[in-house]
Each structure stands twice: as C-alpha cells, then as structure tokens.
C-alpha cells in the first residue's frame, strides 16, 4: 500500500473530488449487483483506431460508440479482481494527493498475492482500462507516465508554483543557455506569458539542439519545442494549452517519412486511437505541417533512403484506414506521392547543403508561406 504520510492537509481539488465520486459510484454499483446475486459488469470503450471519428470542426479523434462489456465470469475473474484493486489504489492516490508511476503501480501490485501482475505490460493495460472506464486522464487518477514530457526553449515564460510555499515561479525559457526547460508530467496548473510569433515543434532532439545552439528562436521570434519521437500526453497538452492561451500558430517539423507524418504529426494534431477517450484534451488541432513534405524531397534534392516494407505498409494503411488522412485530400496526395517516390528523408538530410542550411535557407523559405503548410 502506498504510504499515507504524504496526506496533504490542503483540501482536494474539485477534479479530484469528482474522480473519487465516480470511483465510489462504480464500486457501489458492483456491490449492489453482487448482493442481488447478479454478475457485476463493467463497460469500457473500445480503444482502437477503428472506434474513432474525425471531426474537422472539433479537430480531434473522438471516440465512437463501441463499448466492450466485461462481465464477471470464471474466465474474467482475474482481470476483474485486478481492475478493482487498481481502482482501489487510484482512490488511495487521489485521496492522499500522491502519484505513482506506471512502474511503481506495477510494484505495488506485488503486494496483492495472487492478484499481482507478473509483467508491467499487464498492469499498464489494466491501468489504461481504468482510465478509459472513468473517461478521465490517468494523471487525475494519480498515475503518471515514466517518460519525459519534452524540451522547451525560446520566447516564453512559464508560470508555476512552489509546491510547499505556493509562491509563484516565473520560468524564463530564454535563460537556459544551451539547455532547455523540461515539460513536467502535469501541466494543467501552468500559465504562460509570451510574445512569440509561432511555436515550432521538432521531432528530433538533434535538430532542436542545432536550433537552440544558434539561438534560432531569437532570429525567428518563436518558441522551440522538442518532442523526442511520438509526443507524450503532457507534451501534447502543454502545446495545446500554450497555443490556446496565446492564440499562436503551431508548426510541426518532422522527418519526411510515414512514421513522422502518421504517427508523430497525426498524434500531436488529433490524438491517438488508444487514448481516444481523452483526445479532446491531448490534441493540438491548430498544428500545421511545415516539413519535411514529400515535395521538399524533390524541391531540395534531399538525400534519401528507400522506404522499408513497414513504411510502405504504414503509408498504405494510413491512406486506407486513418480517418484523419482520409479526410484531407492534400494528405492523401502527399502520402501517395511519398509512395511513388519510394523514399524517405530525415530532418538532418538538409545538412547535405551545409550544416546551417536549415536555419539560413530552409526554415525562412518555408515560413514565408505558412498557408502552404499541409493541414
């Protein structure tokens, strides 16, 4: 059991109270069913790309109606017990205003005797189920991911609070030198001050380093954010809140390959299939695609690598099944062009024309026509 010493004297937030209410409500429901000698059930939304709808007006993947019902039977009794114990753990965390990482939750389960998880993926799945069951962000349940949120540099002041004293902290993202501000795991309480013209979101840490090193943000008057691959929820939420708050455009600069487009960019903009119940918060509908586009490969005569089989499969799959790509004809055309070219190009490929070609030529040229960015 998690330690209770951390019990804060501060009153719980309204969000936390609502979560606790939902948890108790579901437990009562189950108890009632059992005492009525019926089999208790739990309903979970189906978490996959096949159960999402894309609304361009809303700008994100919305979960469709499909639900799976888990009835307590002989076959499901193990998962059912584990899910309930996970909910109990969550209730404990919320009440004591504590957090547990996915890994920690897995270790807590080692205390559950027969109901323990043998591997972490099992506990992660149950955790995702619980999250979907209550349709809340897992951070609200007290569970936090292990991974880092992302790095920020440029013309931005983040306003945070000291946990003990409650004093306001003003974090100036221009004052990290060659380093960067790290996006925290929860970002709901942050506030922002900025006069930047746009946010440039970058896939690789390498490209981010180059732009920070040469103070590109100063030159272009922007905020630089590195995602380091597929953006985490915290990163997506941070960008979303920042963009909403200051009403500034978001430009995405990723590798010119099916992974960069359909996994990284698509997830940032409209969310993922797996967390479809939460995409409403974890998406950045105002994001547009700066590069590298398939056309850039041609225009800038970039050095390329041939598409791998998985790339081709991913691209074909996106054209056929991804509601977002299918909705935007320019994207379908771009994917088809990529397949025709049969090659992919990384961000760093621009270094062929000189290490700082990206700063001196590529980005300025692209930024002259943001209206030409892919949706």
């Amino acid at each position, binding site marked *: 059991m998690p330690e209770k010493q951390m019990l804060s004297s501060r009153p719980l937030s309204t969000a936390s109270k609502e979560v606790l209410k939902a*948890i*108790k409500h579901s*437990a*009562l429901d*189950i*108890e009632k069913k*059992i*005492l009525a*000698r*019926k*089999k208790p059930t739990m309903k979970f939304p189906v978490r996959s790309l096949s159960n999402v709808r894309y609304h361009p007006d809303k700008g994100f993947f919305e979960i469709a109606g499909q639900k799976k019902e888990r009835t*307590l*039977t*002989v*076959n499901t*009794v*193990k998962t*059912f*017990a*584990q899910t*309930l*114990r996970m*909910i*109990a753990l969550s*209730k*404990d965390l919320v009440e004591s205003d504590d957090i547990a990482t996915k890994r920690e939750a897995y270790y807590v389960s080692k205390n*559950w*005797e*027969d*109901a323990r998880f043998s591997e972490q993926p099992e506990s992660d799945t149950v955790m995702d189920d619980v999250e979907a069951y209550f349709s809340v962000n897992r951070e609200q349940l007290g569970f936090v991911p292990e991974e880092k949120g992302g790095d920020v540099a440029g013309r931005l002041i983040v306003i945070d609070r000291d946990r003990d004293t409650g004093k306001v902290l003003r974090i100036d993202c221009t004052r990290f030198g060659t380093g960067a501000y790290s996006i925290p795991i929860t970002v709901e309480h942050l506030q922002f001050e900025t006069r930047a013209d746009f946010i440039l979101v970058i896939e690789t840490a390498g490209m981010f380093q180059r732009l920070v090193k040469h103070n590109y943000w100063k030159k272009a008057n922007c905020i630089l954010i590195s995602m380091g691959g597929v953006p985490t929820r915290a990163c997506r939420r941070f960008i979303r809140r920042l963009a909403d708050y200051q009403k500034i455009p978001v430009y995405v600069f990723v590798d010119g390959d099916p992974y960069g487009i359909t996994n990284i960019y698509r997830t940032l903009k409209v969310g993922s299939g797996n967390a479809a119940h939460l995409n409403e918060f974890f998406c950045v509908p105002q994001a547009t695609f700066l590069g590298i586009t398939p056309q850039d490969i041609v225009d800038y005569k970039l050095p390329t690598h041939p598409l791998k089989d998985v790339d081709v499969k991913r691209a074909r799959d996106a054209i056929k099944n991804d509601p977002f790509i299918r909705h935007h004809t320019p994207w379908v055309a771009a994917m088809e062009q990529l397949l025709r070219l049969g090659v992919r190009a990384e961000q760093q490929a621009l270094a062929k024309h000189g290490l700082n070609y990206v700063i001196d030529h590529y980005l300025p040229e692209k930024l002259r026509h943001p209206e030409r960015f892919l949706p």
Partner: protein
Amino acid sequence: MIVRPSLVSCSLLLRERRDRSIRGKAQAKRAAAGSRAKTARRPRIDRGPRQLSFTELPEAKPEPAPQVKIVAKSAGSAAVRPIESGQQAKVEAPAAAPASPRSSDRRETAESMAARQREISVSEFFTKNRHLLGFDNPQKALLTAIKEAVDNSLDACEEAGILPTLNIDIQQLAEDRFRVAVVDNGPGIVRAQVPKIFGKLLYGSKFHTLKQARGQQGIGISAAGMYGLLTTGKSVVVISRTAPVKPAHYYEIQIDTRKNAPQIITDSVIEWDQPHGTRVEIELVGTYKKGRHSVDDYIRQTAIANPHCEIFYSFPGVDGAQHFPRASEKLPPEPREIKPHPYGVELGALIKMLKETKVRNLVGALRRDFSRVSPRVAFEICQAAELRPLSNPHSIAITEAERLYRAINSVKIMSPPTNCLSPIGEEQILAGMQKEIPASFFTAITRSPAVYRGNPFQIEVGMAYGGSLPADDLVDLLRFANRVPLQYQQSGCAITKAALSIDWRSYGLSQAKGALPAGPMALFVHIASVWVPFTSESKEAIAAYPEIMRELRLALQDCGRRLAVHIRAHRREAEEQKKKSYIERYIPHIGIALREILGLPQKTEEELVTTLREVLERSRTTR
C-alpha cells in the same frame, strides 16, 4: 567380369518359390557395378534357414535343404561363375580366354587357377561374414542368439497348440562372456532331428512355404550356436523331451563348418523336470546393455506382442527372474499356407515353377500353382503371351517365359485370399499393452487385410497414452513384423516413415518438423504378412510399398482420432479444475478492493465474497 544375378541360382536357390523385388534390384545393381562375386551371392544364401521348425520335419522326406556349393576362387580373385543349370553344384570356371593372348603377359593360366579353386560351404561363408546373420557386434550377437531361440520356441508352441511359457536366462560368466539358456514348454523335438536343427545351417521347413510365421529376424538357432562355438569353443547344449512318458535327451552339439554338418559330442538320456519342451544353451561372447536395442527391450516388446505367452526372464545384475505374466489364454489362430499370387512372382521364380510343375499343360500349371487363377484368367494370360494354352510348361524357354511374365502383369487378376493371416487382434494388443505399459489410455485397431504386389498383409496399431509415461520425450515407437519386435534401423522403416508423415498436432500432441511426436505415448505398430517385405537382408526395417504406407497411415490416423478425443476430454477437465481454482484465488481480491474503496466492514466483505462465489459456481455448473 560379368556376374548375372541368375548365375547365382545354385540348387538351393532354385527351390525358392519367389523373390523379393528389392533384393533383386539391389543385387542387379551390385552385379552391374561389377562387384566381387562374393557380394553378389551373399544375399541369396542369407535368407536360408530362418524358419526352422521343431515339429514339421518329417524324417521320411528326402533331404529338404541340400548343401549349397559355390565354386569360388580364393580370396581376391576376379571371376566366379557357377553354372546356370544349378543341378551340378561343382564346376570349373570357364576360361574366358582373350582373343590373342600373349603368353608372356599372362600371370596365371586357367589350369593354375583351377588348382586353387575349391568348394566353400555355407557355414564357412558365414563364419567369415557373421554380420549377415546379425552377429556384427557383441551387443547385437547376444540379442540375436536370444531372438532365434525365442522365435523358434514360440513358433513351435503355437503350432503344437500349447500356450507358451518361456524361461530365458542370461548368465554373465566374465566381462564379455555369457551363457544364454531358453527353455520352452513346446512339443519337443524328435531325437533324430535335434542334431540337424541345432548343428546344420539352412535346415528347416517353413522356408519353402508361403505362410505367416516369425523368424524373419535371422538365420536360425544353428547360426547362434555356430557363433558361440566360434567365439568360445563351447558346444550348444540341448535338452528335449516330446512327452512325459518319453525320456529327456541331452546333447552337446557342434557344427562342422567345412561340411555344414552336425557333430555330436554328447548324446545321453537324463532326468528333467519338464514334461515336454526344449532347452537350448549357448555360451558366447557378447555385451549386455540396457536401453535401446537391449535384450530387456526385446523381451518386453515380445511380451506385449504375444500376450498369450508367459515369460520368466533372468538377467545379469539382478537376482531372481522378472515375470511377464500371461494376459490371454487364447492362442492366436493358426495361419494358413497359400499359393503364390501371380502378381508377386518374379521371372526367375516363374521359370523355376514352370520347370518343376507336375501339370503337363500351361493352363493347368497356372491354375494349379497360383492362387486366384481361374481357367478364364489362365486362358487370358496365354493369349496375352501368345502361347498355346496346352503347350508343355517344361519346354517353355526363357524368352517365352519372359513373355508369359509380362502377360501376367497385363491381365486383371483377383487379389489373393486374405484369410490366411493371423493378426494379433485388437483385444490382444490391448491386453499386451495394458500389462506392460503404465499408461492411462489405451486403444488399438486391426485394419482389414490388404495386398501389396500379390502378397496379403494386415496392419495393426495400438496406442498407450498418459499414465506415468515420460511426457517430454519423443513417442516410443514399437515396431513388429509377424509378432517379432524390430529393433534396428528405425529411421529406414516404413512404419517410422508413416508415423512421421502424419500431422500429430491435430491430434493434440506436439511435434517438431520432421520428427516423431512428443508426449507420454507408446505407439505399437504390427504388420502381419505371408511375406514381410524387408528393406535389406538384415531384416530390420520394412519397405515402404505404397499399399503398406496407405494402410499404416489409415490405421495411425484412426488411432490418432481416438487419442484426440481422449486428450480433448482430458484438457477440458483440467481446464474446469483450473477455473474452479481461479474462483477460489481471485474472488477474495474483489472483496478486498471493494472494502478499500467503500470502507466496508469485515462482515460485509465476507458476505460479498461468499455470495459472489456462489453466483459464479452456479453459473459454471449450469453452463
């Protein structure tokens, strides 16, 4: 040099009714390759006396197995040419002189060579080639000696209608020296025959009949005795009694390898506690081992395939005898002798039959000497061969016989009768397996008889599964031909090939590619036939004729399906158990979680757990 296969047909071989195509082919190949004369004639001689009988040797009959005489040059020589007719055994090698020999180049003359050419006897031949008899290494020698004695005993008992009781005893005298004794309760052997049976190679009765019998495994007890004599210098000791009122005779016999004739060392009357039966004792050099190819295995498998037989077995390292009890009081039905079917006859055998027939016209000869040849079929054959139906079979020359041979295979002839076989039977297989294999599930199937190349045969499969059999090992494959366990050359055998060709995974066993399935199972496969087609002279593996493969596969699949039903039922039961334990294990956690969330009192938690358990149990049983 040229050695035509037919040239090897010395008198003994001409008596043989039929040949086996595989052997014929192998031989033709060897001959074609210009191999030494010795290798070309080896296989012919080898098949001799493997079917000795204790009872069927009428004294009145003229010498049934004439002495084989082969003219050979001394070792390392080139030409050996026994003469075609086969009537005269001893001949001069014809001098195939070059057209214009330069006498200075010639190292030998026909005359000088002739001086060194002399007769060798079968016994001498086998003395040098003991591997042909199954005595290639000490371990196999011990096994073969016991096998020969046991096969003889079982055949004798069954023919006399006696339920066999065998007493097999292996005594270790020194590191590699053993005294082997086999005692049976059979009919005994009449005094005059004893020396010939135990002291003369190629002496027996069953060899000339087409009938299902044991004894495909070797060359006879006399060979075992000869091997013992060669390695230890000790005689074969035989005790035999034919009836309680008759005296028991004691013999010490040796074989004179030069003459292939018995030498009686001792012949006396003694006191013996057996009312009737035979005891054979041989001292030999051998190796006693456990495991694969062991005597222990052979005895156990013999007990499985012969549940009507009781065996007491004493072996080195253990005091007292291991007892294999009788599981059935029923003797197997006696197999019947049949005439050869035309489809299974080869050209050489056909020529020989035509020469020896007593009938004076071709149609009559075909009808009388073959099974399933009706007058209509006989006329059809003559017509197809363009031969006069009433011509004298004796005068049909080789070219005409060839035409006749081809004609036979072009005419449609009914399959041979199959009621001549004596399968073990499903009930008996089950009885045999149940007493010797610690399994929990048994099934057996006896297929209907079928025919390959004119020979009737029948396949039987038994399966023992589960129990305390090792679960992770490969399946134990037990192969039998006419109730005799086959222990060597497993991979080359049709039985193994058939077992490998089946997808056992669909029957619930695991199976690696190209391997036998794994699981707690023993697989019993038996082929009964008037002529079991072995792949080689060593008679350890069965040839994969398509008809045989088909029957084997069908039988294995049939048993496999029954096994699958059993395994599935078993798994369902285990699954049920697992689910039941699931309820016990996980329901308390639902109680704990609900208590923690809702802050319930202990009593409510217990009530919840009890109720929930009842609800789930009920739904499980009503399902």
